[in-house]
């Protein structure tokens, strides 16, 4: 039964290899149906295996842990690493999200990407993506985790730039990879530091070693901050959040995959996985919480000002991940993972239904050109509404339960009223505003310019995943994962009723504000004040980095294009050449001239001889 778990990451890998290897055996491109079976099937079976393993091994034992050792990776002195998997409930939750939601997105993709000339390449990348993410969550040592970590980055690069003919997509892809690589490098340095201090990179051993009272707290703080650097990059948090909105260049199901099932949740997972280290360092905890709080607000405001349906959702992801970081920072580990799970459901739903909208409108993404779509594509409308309700955390939806848990924990953690809680509550309000603004602008009211050509593009392959995700987004709040064994239990304390009340009220107020906003924007159309323009540009971070880092670097590269050091050698060569012309002037080929200089030289020499 444990062997089944080892197959979970291997199946998508096999799918990837088959899809990539097809041209080795067949000259012609295989039909889409074959590719679909391989691509979707591999992830589907993986999801099935996960479910079976969960039911058989873990269902009754919340503290169950399965270790699967595949082979020795490297062993150099104390550096002992294995290709080994470690599965506990935290991993299991991630596995279910990645394979389950991943499978639904795969299925949807089969409909969405139909007739694309690069259908096979698309599914190959998608399978590799799932494989990398599964490796990430199952790794029992940080280096194997880093393997998945970078693999996820690579796949996001490939998929964001999937339609490679447009250079804009390529730039966005490069940006995503490089920005996350900056975080990854910080994380790698964190690994070096951890190994330096504890002589192991195996996660359970590391946690044991760090728990030792003699462990150097300062080093743990630095290491956890460096790991946070990695998490911030992958999860698109401040200050490395700029890549995510641009990452919308990829096909829409890819965005769903990146935002819901894989990639951006990796940072949350990493911190949750390493939480015993974080609890040892108050600085690191505070840093995580502050990063989360700031990001959720900043991204929320940016979302309000967007006009591209996918960019709104992108900023909302950044903001929601901010919630998760906030939760991690206040020690609400299970809350963070719970929100990660519900977020996976409703964000996948939102992106996929946004994909249906976009496809129905022939690749129109501007929400100001939409409107009144509730009549034309009612099923998509229904799904999108459920997603919005859940995202805004309206009571009884899945998002409500998870977000509520985070807010309460934030309240408790600092014993009452505090800025982190306030940020969370304010974030809830903003979430309500931007969520319903989009919903109204797209579906409500009169038809926009693009809505007239609307043709429902949903195929069964698309509606089934949408329906399942809609149910999960509604009822997912009931599926509280049993994570007590991983994170320990915290005493339940119930704060004052008004605290709870505020959390419930905020999305509803947001709904009202969004209606007002919608009424105004419907009249004015797409125009922005100074402030909203600033929000629209993502608080000027792109501008800042462009001027602070990208341009100086490019200038430096251009300046040094020909290598200064080479100039040194070239200078030597030029100098020798000059000397050569100088001396060769004397070598003029005139025998009589040679003779004269020879005679003069002899006389000079003789004279010197006599004189001395």
């Amino acid at each position, binding site marked *: 039964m444990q062997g089944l778990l080892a197959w979970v990451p291997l199946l998508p890998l096999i799918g990837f290899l088959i899809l990539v290897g097809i041209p080795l055996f067949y000259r012609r491109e295989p039909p889409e149906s074959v590719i679909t079976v391989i691509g979707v099937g591999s992830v589907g079976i993986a999801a099935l295996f996960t479910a079976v393993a969960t039911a058989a091994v873990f269902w009754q034992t919340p503290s169950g842990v399965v270790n699967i050792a595949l082979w020795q990776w490297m062993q*150099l*002195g104390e*550096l002992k690493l294995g290709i080994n998997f470690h599965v506990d409930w935290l991993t299991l939750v991630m596995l279910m999200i990645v394979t389950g939601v991943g499978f639904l997105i795969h299925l949807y993709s089969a409909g969405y990407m139909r007739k694309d000339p690069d259908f096979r390449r698309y599914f190959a990348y998608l399978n590799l993506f799932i494989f990398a993410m599964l490796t990430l969550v199952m790794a029992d040592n940080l280096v194997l985790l880093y393997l998945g970590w970078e693999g996820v980055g690579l796949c996001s690069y490939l998929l964001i730039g999937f339609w490679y003919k447009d250079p804009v997509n390529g730039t966005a892809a490069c940006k995503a*990879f490089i920005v996350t690589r900056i975080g990854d490098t910080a994380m790698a340095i964190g690994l070096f530091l951890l190994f330096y201090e504890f*002589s192991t990179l195996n996660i359970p051993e590391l946690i044991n070693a760090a728990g030792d009272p003699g462990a150097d707290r300062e080093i743990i703080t630095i290491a956890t901050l460096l790991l946070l650097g990695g998490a911030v990059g992958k999860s698109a948090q401040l200050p490395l959040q700029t890549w995510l909105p641009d990452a919308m260049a990829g096909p829409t199901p890819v965005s769903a995959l990146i935002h819901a099932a894989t990639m951006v949740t990796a940072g949350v997972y990493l911190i949750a996985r390493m939480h015993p280290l974080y609890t040892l360092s108050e600085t690191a905890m505070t840093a995580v919480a502050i990063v989360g709080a700031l990001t959720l607000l900043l991204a929320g405001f940016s979302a309000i000002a967007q006009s591209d349906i996918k960019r709104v959702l992108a900023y909302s992801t950044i903001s929601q991940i901010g919630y998760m970081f906030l939760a991690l920072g206040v020690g609400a580990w299970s809350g963070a993972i719970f929100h990660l799970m519900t977020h996976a459901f409703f964000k996948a739903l939102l992106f996929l239904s946004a994909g249906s909208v976009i496809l129905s409108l022939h690749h129109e993404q501007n929400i100001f050109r939409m409107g009144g779509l509730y009549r034309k594509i009612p099923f998509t409308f229904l799904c999108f509404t459920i997603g919005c309700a859940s995202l805004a955390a309206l009571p009884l939806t899945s998002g409500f339960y998870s977000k509520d848990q985070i807010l309460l924990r934030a309240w408790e953690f600092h014993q009452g009223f505090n800025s982190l809680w306030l940020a969370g509550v304010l974030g809830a309000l903003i979430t309500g505003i931007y969520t319903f603004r989009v919903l109204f602008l797209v579906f409500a009211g009169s038809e926009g310019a693009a809505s007239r050509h609307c043709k429902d593009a949903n195929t069964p392959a698309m509606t089934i995943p949408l329906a399942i995700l809609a149910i999960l987004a509604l009822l997912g709040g009931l599926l509280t994962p049993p994570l007590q064994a991983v994170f320990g239990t915290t005493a339940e304390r119930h704060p004052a009723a008004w605290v709870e009340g505020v959390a419930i009220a905020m999305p509803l107020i947001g709904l009202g504000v969004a209606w007002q906003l919608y009424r105004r924007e419907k009249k004015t159309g797409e125009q922005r004040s100074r402030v909203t323009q600033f929000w629209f540009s993502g608080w000027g971070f792109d501008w800042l980095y462009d001027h602070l880092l990208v341009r100086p670097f490019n200038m430096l590269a251009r300046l040094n294009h020909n*290598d200064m050091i080479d100039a040194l050698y070239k200078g030597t060569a030029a100098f020798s050449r000059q000397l050569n012309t100088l001396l060769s002037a004397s070598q003029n080929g005139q025998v009589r001239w040679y003779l004269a200089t020879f005679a003069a030289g002899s006389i000079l020499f003789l004279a010197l001889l006599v004189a001395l």
Partner: protein
Amino acid sequence: MTLMAIIILLFAGGILAWLSERYLQRGGHWIGLVSLLLASLLLASYWPYLGAAQVIGSGPWWDSVQINWIPRFGISFHLAIDGLGFLMLALTMAMGIFGLVMTWNDIHFRRGFFYFNYLWTLAGVVGVFTAMDLFLFFFFWEVMLVPMLFLIAVWGYEQRLFAAIKFFIFTQASSLLMLIAIVALAYLHYGNSGQLTFNYNDLLDAQLAPSTAYWLMLGFFVAFIVKLPALPFHPWLPDAHTQAPTAGSILLAAILLKTGAYGLLRFNLPLFPESSAAFAPVAMSIGAVSVIYGAMLAFAQSDMKRLVAYSSVSHMGFVLLGLYALNTIAMQGAVMQMIAHGLSTAALFALVGALQHRLHTRDMTQLGGVWAILPKLSAIALFFAVASLGLPGLGNFVAEFTVLVGSFRSSHWIAVLAATGLIGAALYALIMMQRGFFGALNKRLQKLSPQAPIADLNLRESCALLSLAALLVLLGLRPQPVFDIASPTVARSLAHIETARAQYAKDQGIGTRFTSQEQTWAKPHPKESESP
């Protein structure tokens, strides 16, 4: 004797190829391939040693052969092979065959002479990797240089003569320093022991005054890092690599650069342990700066081949960094990097060569959107670009990671500095993909493609490239065999350093340079001493 046979086989094959030029139009590559395959077969006869290291004489040698050459000066024809030597020879053979197969039909004139030079370069390299007599080592060092010079100067691209001369001057000038150091070392040893010898094993015991040893060490060091190449001696490399014919670039990048790294590990560290240990921080800094500087320059290039060439500077910086970190993890990582870099860069050069062969340009402003017309080639290029940026799961990552982990123990800041090179690697690898293969199809190529459809990689090329890709994946997921093979050699080099440090500490008492150094930049670990 097997070692002898390998070298003779390659030399003879070369001569045969040259002679065949008169009678056969296209016999050269077959002769080359057959002699390389036979040589590989001979090398494969060492497979029983792969399991456990056997000790023959004074060292972890698997096999050795010693014949008197110039007995008056204590010079002998002394070859030996151990784990490191085997790895390097295996790389040499594999890359030799790879280079030959990838450029099967590329050479259009003086074919026989081309393969003569090709095989003689390889023979010289084999000699360098096995010579255990310093004079013989120098001899092979030169033998490998001259045919390479011809390869660049005769079959190269536009500026071949310039590049060839530059290459020659750099290597020749630096190897003169090494010659002086070799002769001085033998002479000083003669003065101390009364025995004139150039034998490596004997010279290991040479007693030298610290300041003299430092200078001799520098002589070797400069020769080796010119070959490596590291800052500031790298400028020969981009020109030579860019102008050399594809097969020449493959030889240069995959094998010839490794001779420098090999020399550092085999000669510099064990022969001059004290001075190497004292010099280590400088050498590590040079390595780290090379990593970053090479990456920056690679990013700035528009010639794809030049980009790959500069990326070599960056990658070989990791080797230097790892070797001078002076601990098992980093040094093993450096050996790994030698192999992984050999594979990935050779493949990239081959791909650029294939691209130029088809599209007649390697300027990235003239390329763009190549994926649309050459999907297979582009996909494989993507793989190797990704390998070159150090994606985990591939050999380069294992190497870079272990180098960095190890050197972090020796010096935090230098390792952190080098780690930022990872970002640089992403920059140049992605910019290469972006400008060369992705994007809209370049206008020039649009005109080119409808007239005659451009052939994608054929079976021969695909197989050669895919086998390298498979090797890289294997190294990335199961590197342990390589580590095991190399470990006796690395341990031996390290043991010299350790004894020297201990000796120094004993001589100088407490509070000396080395012990204080160890406290500041190498945290003493209890387990470190018991590592093999």
